């Protein structure tokens, strides 16, 4: 059980990394892209926007005094 927990912790740390916000933003933006593209509207611009938003917020959060 503890090995499973260790493996789960390792996978979480490796995939999600230091800041869970980045993974969350990526997942939300992908879901938005799928929803908007599914409605037949161009959705290619959403992920680049997510890159700017996710990286900016993560950096400013990390460096808050």
């Amino acid at each position, binding site marked *: 059980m503890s090995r499973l927990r260790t493996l789960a912790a390792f996978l979480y740390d490796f995939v999600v*990394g230091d800041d869970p916000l980045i993974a969350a933003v*990526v997942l939300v933006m992908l879901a938005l892209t*799928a929803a908007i593209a599914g409605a037949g509207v161009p959705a290619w611009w959403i992920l680049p926007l997510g*890159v700017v938003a996710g*990286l900016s917020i993560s950096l400013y959060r990390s460096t808050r005094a």
Partner: protein
Amino acid sequence: MSSDSLLFIAVFLASAVEGVEAVTIVLAAGLTRGWRSALVGAGVASVALAAIVAVLGPALTALPIDILRLVVGALLLIFGLQWLRKAILRASGFKALHDEDAIFAAELAADRAIGREPRGIDGYGFTVSFKGVLLEGLEVAFIVVTFGSNQHNIPLAVLAALAAALLVIVAGVAVRAPLSRVPENTLKYAVGVMLTAYGTFWGAEGAGAHWPGGDAAILALIAFTLVTSALLGVAMRRRHARLPASFATSPPTPK
């Protein structure tokens, strides 16, 4: 031009693109975390990949390619943004430049302190390399099976993919020495830009979006990621410069 020639060229080029991504990741892991861990990671991933392809075989064509692109794109994007974030924090002075080396050295020292034989394999370097080779290799497997079965010539598709892999590996070995002179953080930054750009492209494609300009959009995404991260780097440097002297000499160490 015969259909066989077209098949070979298409699979060769597509596999070479995936190969460049994988070799870039292995090179970065090897140069920054040690070659042993990176090469063992790449080797284990190759064996795992061979096992997956052997077990699943032609059933791979049944898996929706968009789902694979979505998953691979999401992982590449999360992974790339993590690398970019750390590289910007280091370049702006918010994070020590060689903290991962220090952590690795501390782990080895801790192993020795409790009388355990040091593992010798750096987990971070291993997994970075493993993941890069496995994910990109899976994409190559899909390309080979999809193109090959469409043209009823899987052996030729396999040959094209192997030729591309060989070329990319030889090129990777050739640029290893010059790359070792590039500062560690610059290398990580460059890999972060590449992973983010590719992740954005494949993630959006997998989610059903279509890029203006098709595959050429990857170049625009690389430029976009470079400019965006460079601007954020400048902003972070200014932010660090505004810190009181007590913080600037002893910067906070965000994770």
